């Protein structure tokens, strides 16, 4: 009887404590909207199955540690039934216990051994090998490991070690019980809460990286994220789900090149600020030093919005679109950012001709006239959106010429707008929502007037803007425009093109906004292969690609002087290009070649050809 009362007290106390901790973490006043996204629920559940149950991401990036972790998790699944029966026995009283004879006992014992292997391996890694991405030693991690070891050992001992109903058996039973409840108390107070939060965060993670939410319609106070109270529920979930594994920082190009941005610390600082009852999230480094802000503006403006962190995070945290970029938006909306280059980008884009370089429209006008580009009037099938890259940059123009040749060879009906402004990409990524709304309004009007139905562009940043950002604007969504990156259209056109492929060894640089931002990695490769290319992949490719250094408006706002010895992002990427031994690097974005060219010159390797997939394809057109 006494044991049952004691058991009941323990269970009530630990559940109460668990609930209280959760409440403390989540009771903040936050924005109730935007709601959690619930599109494609089947695919979302499948993602949870892959990433949580099968631990695909965890294992992908760190095979050994990932597998050890998976052993622990799978062991927990196997133990669910054991624990339930353990609880039941607690209520029924220990007198009711019987020797475990079923196959399940053996099965659980086998898993207990697996969990022991896993947890001891992980503990060894954390406390003996001490990889630097894990950060300083955490006593709680040690405690959790100890409790898990205890749980497994006591299970094994209870199963076969001691005879049922002996005193040793009883003591062992209680140690198991207390460890279990202790875990219940420790988990919500530590990063181990990811156990409960990560499946939810993974379920609700957007389909592509770096997604920026629309401002709440009709809410004049929504200026982006300024204060902790501006956070949405998913942000809160993210902030508390972090396991501090450091995967995000390990792949962050800004961090890898010696800059101060550390995506893991951005999340953890927000967690600290939230728990400490902070008000404003971001400010100058001095404000962060004084404790009146938590995330430094300097760090925010180093981000390339490349999405590598989000792609790497095993628990589904969004660092970029809903945190870093939304914090930039908060700073800019209040006019609080003091970075000169950011201000210059905005004042340049504010004025005609509304492009980030401030180059006259005349340049584009001359180009499309000289090249005899057909003007889109609504009768053609495709609007070929040049974007600022193909309008003003000499290499971008070269790509547009190649596109014309391919369009003609494939008899595609197409045209370009007489005049374009910037779609607003660098503005919105740098935090200037107002600028983006201004330019988009005019463009949407023009698209409507010209009856655009299909739009193709060689710029993945523009494609992303039109296909994701603009769709948040009802007027654009109403036009029902299909948006494609040229790699998608070209890949479809391949069968209708007469090609004379020539063998060529090259490597392909996946643009972040194409591979991670749009999920396109196969099409550019099939285009290159049809042209006869043999692709040698770089270590970072596909969805694990490494930024060229231009994203997140960095092409325009990056500071010239970067921390000391470290290499710049583009230099580092170019080293990977060189290591493949290929003479040509293929790209699929107008900004990557600018950055890579700069790196090639720096490395004295101007002999490396940097060509867009469209240029490579156009060269292999027969006749």
């Amino acid at each position: 009887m006494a044991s049952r009362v004691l058991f009941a007290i323990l269970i009530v106390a630990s559940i109460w404590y668990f609930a209280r901790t959760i409440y403390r973490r989540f009771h903040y006043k936050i924005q109730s909207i935007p709601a959690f996204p619930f599109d494609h629920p089947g695919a979302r559940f499948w993602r949870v199955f892959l990433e949580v149950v099968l631990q695909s991401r965890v294992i992908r990036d760190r095979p050994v540690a990932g597998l050890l972790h998976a052993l622990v998790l799978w062991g927990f699944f196997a133990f669910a039934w054991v624990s339930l029966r353990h609880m039941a026995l607690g209520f029924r009283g220990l007198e009711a216990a019987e020797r475990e004879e079923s196959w399940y006992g053996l099965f659980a014992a086998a898993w207990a051994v697996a969990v022991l292997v896993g947890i001891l391996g992980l503990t060894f890694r954390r406390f003996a090998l001490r990889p630097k991405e894990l950060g300083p030693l955490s006593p709680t991690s040690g405690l959790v490991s100890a409790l898990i070891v205890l749980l497994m050992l006591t299970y094994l001992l209870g199963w076969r070690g001691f005879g049922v109903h002996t005193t040793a058996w009883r003591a062992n039973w209680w140690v198991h019980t207390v460890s279990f409840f202790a875990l219940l108390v420790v988990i919500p107070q530590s990063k181990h809460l990811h156990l409960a939060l990560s499946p939810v965060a993974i379920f609700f993670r957007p389909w592509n990286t770096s997604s920026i939410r629309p401002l709440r319609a009709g809410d004049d106070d929504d200026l982006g994220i300024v204060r902790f109270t501006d956070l949405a529920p998913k942000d809160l979930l993210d902030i508390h789900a972090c396991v501090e594994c450091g995967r995000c920082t390990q792949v962050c190009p800004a961090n890898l090149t010696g800059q101060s941005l550390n995506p893991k610390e951005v999340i953890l600082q927000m967690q600290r600020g939230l728990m400490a009852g902070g008000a404003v999230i971001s400010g100058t480094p001095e404000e962060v030093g004084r404790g009146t802000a938590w995330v430094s503006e300097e760090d925010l403006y180093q981000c390339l919005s490349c999405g590598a962190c989000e792609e790497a995070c095993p628990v589904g945290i969004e660092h970029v679109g809903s945190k870093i970029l939304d914090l930039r938006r908060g700073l800019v909306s209040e006019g609080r950012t003091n970075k000169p280059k950011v201000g210059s980008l905005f004042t340049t884009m504010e004025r005609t001709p509304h492009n980030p370089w401030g180059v006259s429209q005349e340049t584009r006008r001359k180009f499309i006239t000289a090249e005899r580009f057909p003007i889109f009037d609504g009768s053609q099938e495709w609007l070929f959106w040049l974007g600022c890259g193909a309008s003003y940059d000499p290499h971008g123009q070269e790509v547009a010429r190649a596109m014309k040749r391919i369009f003609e060879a494939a008899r595609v009906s197409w045209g370009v707008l007489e005049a374009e402004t910037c779609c607003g990409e660098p503005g919105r990524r740098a935090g200037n929502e107002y600028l983006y709304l201004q330019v988009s309004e005019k463009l949407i009007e023009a698209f409507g007037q010209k009856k655009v139905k299909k739009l193709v562009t060689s710029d993945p940043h523009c494609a992303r803007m039109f296909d994701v950002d603009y769709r948040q604007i009802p007027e654009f969504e109403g036009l029902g425009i299909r948006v494609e990156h040229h790699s998608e259209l070209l890949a479809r056109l391949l069968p209708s093109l007469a090609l004379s492929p020539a063998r060529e060894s090259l490597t392909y640089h996946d643009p972040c906004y194409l591979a991670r931002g749009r999920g396109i990695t196969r099409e550019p490769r099939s285009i290159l292969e049809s042209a006869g290319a043999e692709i040698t992949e770089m270590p970072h490719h596909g969805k694990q690609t490494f930024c060229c250094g231009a994203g997140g408006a960095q092409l325009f706002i990056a500071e010239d002087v970067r921390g000391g010895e470290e290499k710049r992002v583009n230099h580092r990427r170019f080293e990977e290009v060189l290591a493949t031994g290929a003479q040509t690097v293929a790209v699929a974005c107008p900004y990557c070649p600018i950055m890579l060219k700069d790196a090639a010159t720096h490395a004295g390797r101007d002999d490396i050809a940097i060509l867009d997939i469209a240029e490579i394809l156009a060269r292999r057109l027969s006749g």
Partner: protein
Amino acid sequence: MKIIVCLKQVPARDSVLRIDDAQAWVRETDLSFEINEPDTYALEEGLRLKEKHGGEVVVVCAGPARAASAIREALAKGADRGIHIEDEALARLDSFTTARALAAAIRAESFDLVLTGLQSDDLGFSQTGVILAELLGAPHATIIMEVQKMEGGIKVKRELEAGWFQYVEMPLPALLAIQSGINKVRYATLMGIKKAKTKELKRVTPAELGVDLKPRQIIRRVYAPQKSKQTQFLEGPPKEVAAKLLEKLKFEARVL
């Protein structure tokens, strides 16, 4: 300090200009307009002075109805209120008459400083500011690089030719024509736009101000310059070419 900033709205810098039917100005349809760029530096200087010394920035614009958007932009960037002298004729009026309209509106304000841009991007006369100062009976200085407040007045830095500068001390009230590029203009913010909605934008007609807009100067004709350059290639052996060149210089170009 109460600071008046005069703004003009001009065709956007990059516009394709077409001459209107009367052949006296550019066709305004399908043009977009923005704040005259030199005036943006005057506005920025005004806002900075206000932030430093306190006071108020009032923007005054003499222009047609479309010019209201220029004032609203200035309000969004931080000006406190706006006065729009509205009349379609103001779209292409001469400096003197425009200055009279501006003076009539500004006189009603007890100002310390009037700031203008150095010139307009469309007509480029650089006259409105100095005439306005004369009409207001205030001292003025042009091509201002720097403004410092002092006891009982201001000290300004003027840009002269060939890298020379001049420092001038002057009493207030005064008018300054600000040199372009002396400051870094601020960007428009969402918060600014939202705040601007509640700021005062007063519309007045020239008639209400008692100003007659009869122009003092009329543009008779606007036309694209005729090609006047002629290039000829002289070919042949050097000796012959030299002889031909000499002949042409003597008899055709008449420079020898």
